[in-house]
């Protein structure tokens, strides 16, 4: 988890780090005075302690979790009776709205909503990069402009529309909405990546008589895998972590996702912090896993200048 190269400069900006400074970098001496070290240390603590407290609480006995501060466990951390896994069991499987079901729902929402837009956007990005046609530039400007448009603008009419055709509360309603909302970002990331591919490869494919369709499948898609991965991670995290769209189109019924469930748990008094904290970690498990293991692609996507509204 700690081995992330967060500081890869973008290829277009050759700078200090890019100019062969790497070999000595590993042996770099600390240039930090005590002030810097302490500041950074304190900042790290502030960043970690809230999450850490939540994690500790999720493993505490219900009575203790709601009666005393979580830091009290460190008075006797080895006392086994104060730890329990029961909270996770309870939050996942029991109660009126078990988190386990929401977890499956979240997967059922996020996976299709991530995969479906990719191909549609890839074809569009190809046309924006390698084809010439009337209206192309205007169309792409519209895509760039739409990047910053908040998806609230579409919610009221879509809710009406889904209501009319009876799609409210179903997964396809959310898949389609996220596919539409994610389209500008997908096209933008993929097109920017494709525009940086060596044109000579595509030219030679054309000379060899390959059609656009063949060039797309045999050359461009394999070469664009890093960008496809970047977008996939962005979109997956975006959809999994989304509250507003899920709340409006799926609501709190059988199909409710983890974010809606967790938000709902806060309102109910008497849930107890041990369940709330365990529920929070259930909802965070997958994004954290995806994020930590695929951070490289995530950062590449971020540094490509994508801004999502």
């Amino acid at each position, binding site marked *: 988890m700690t*081995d*992330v190269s*967060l*500081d890869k400069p*973008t290829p277009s*900006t*050759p*700078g200090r*780090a890019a100019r062969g400074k790497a070999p000595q970098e*590993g042996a770099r001496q*600390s240039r930090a005075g005590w002030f*810097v070290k302490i500041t*950074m240390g304190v900042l*790290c603590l502030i960043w970690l302690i809230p999450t850490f407290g939540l994690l500790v609480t999720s493993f505490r006995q219900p009575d203790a979790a709601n009666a005393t*501060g*979580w830091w009290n466990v460190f008075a006797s951390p080895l006392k086994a009776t104060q730890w329990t896994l029961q909270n996770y069991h309870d939050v996942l499987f029991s109660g009126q709205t078990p988190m386990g079901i929401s977890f*499956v729902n979240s*997967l059922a929402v996020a996976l*299709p909503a991530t*995969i*479906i837009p990719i*191909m*549609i*956007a890839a*074809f*569009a990005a190809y*046309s924006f990069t390698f*084809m010439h046609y009337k209206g192309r530039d205007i169309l792409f400007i519209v895509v*760039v402009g*739409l990047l910053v*448009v*908040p998806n*609230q*603008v*579409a919610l*009221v009419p879509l*809710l009406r529309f889904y209501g009319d055709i009876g799609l409210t509360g179903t*997964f396809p309603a959310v*898949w389609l909405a996220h*596919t*539409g909302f994610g*389209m*500008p970002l997908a*096209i933008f990331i993929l097109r920017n990546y494709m525009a940086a591919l060596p044109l000579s490869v595509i030219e030679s494919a054309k000379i060899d008589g390959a*059609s656009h*369709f063949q060039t797309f499948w045999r050359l461009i898609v394999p070469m664009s895998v890093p960008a496809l991965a970047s977008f996939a991670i962005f979109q997956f995290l975006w959809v999994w*972590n989304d509250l*507003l769209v899920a709340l409006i189109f799926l609501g709190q019924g059988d199909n409710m996702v983890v974010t809606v469930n967790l*938000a709902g748990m806060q309102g109910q008094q008497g849930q107890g*912090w041990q369940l709330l*904290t365990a*529920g929070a970690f259930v*909802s965070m498990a997958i*994004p954290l896993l*995806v*994020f930590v293991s695929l951070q490289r692609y995530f950062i590449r996507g*971020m*540094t490509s200048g994508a*801004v999502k*509204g």
Partner: protein
Amino acid sequence: MLKVINALLAILGGVLGSLLLFYVMNKVAERLPRKWEERVKPYVFVGPAVVLIGFFLIYPAIRTIVFSFANRTSTEFIGISNYTDLLSSGGFVSGALLNTLLWMIVVPALTVVFGLAVAVLADRLQLRAEKLTKSIIFLPMAISMVGAATIWRFVYETRPAGTPQIGVLNAILGKFGIDPVAWLQLSQAHVNSLLLMVIMIWAQVGFSMVLLSAAVKGVPEDTIEAGRIDGASEKRIFFNIVVPQIWPTVITVFITVLIMVMKVFDIVYVMTGGNFNTDVIGMRFWTELFTNGNSGYAAAIVVMLMIAIVPVMVYQVRNFRRQETQR
């Protein structure tokens, strides 16, 4: 179980379906006379994306504008009274609007400052310490706003005076003999709103740090050397040499966070539901649409949000055009 199968079917159907769509459309295009084929093909490639964007973003946006001039159930046009009602109601202007403005002033600026500070200071640590620090600061990016709000609610938790505090903040106050404070209800001087902003800053500094760190490391060494030779202090080097060169990145980060803040909803919804004078535009949109069942107000709020975002959009497009000419 059924849901998992459904989801898998959706993935399969979605992928194969769109594949088939493109394949068939492509085949049809190839059947056309040569001249037409070249003309039609680009639209085959771009068509489905355009249809999706049109149907799920542009057309609904236009309908939202129309709804904003109609009554609460969108059955009758009532002119601009949704706007005038909202803008003349103190609850909206001095509540949601003012608070959103406060978010816009505080959060993007602090996110940039913190991100830049971490980027620059961590750069001075040993390599391993730098990576660890950055990973810790970056991690909240993965967490949903609902998750982040839960985490911080626990920090702000208040128990009656005299009983043990389980929230960190009040426990610290207790150590100094100060009575517990009901943080989320403390609207004096917008303290509760500021505490909600802390969550957003906590979540977004990682993003700011990564982008700014890449930019700082991209500053050519010789420009810094030149400053050193001229005898400039570290401070001057930073503000007069480094900052101007990373300014475009600063703007990018600022704008990204600004947009996020303008439409913030999750944090407020989970923490206070907009009560105790913490209402924001994104929250108010929800309240009007669902609690009050007034589509007209909800649409008008979104339109105002859209108008506020137009300058950002123009900037974004201009910026993009400039980059394209440099390509």
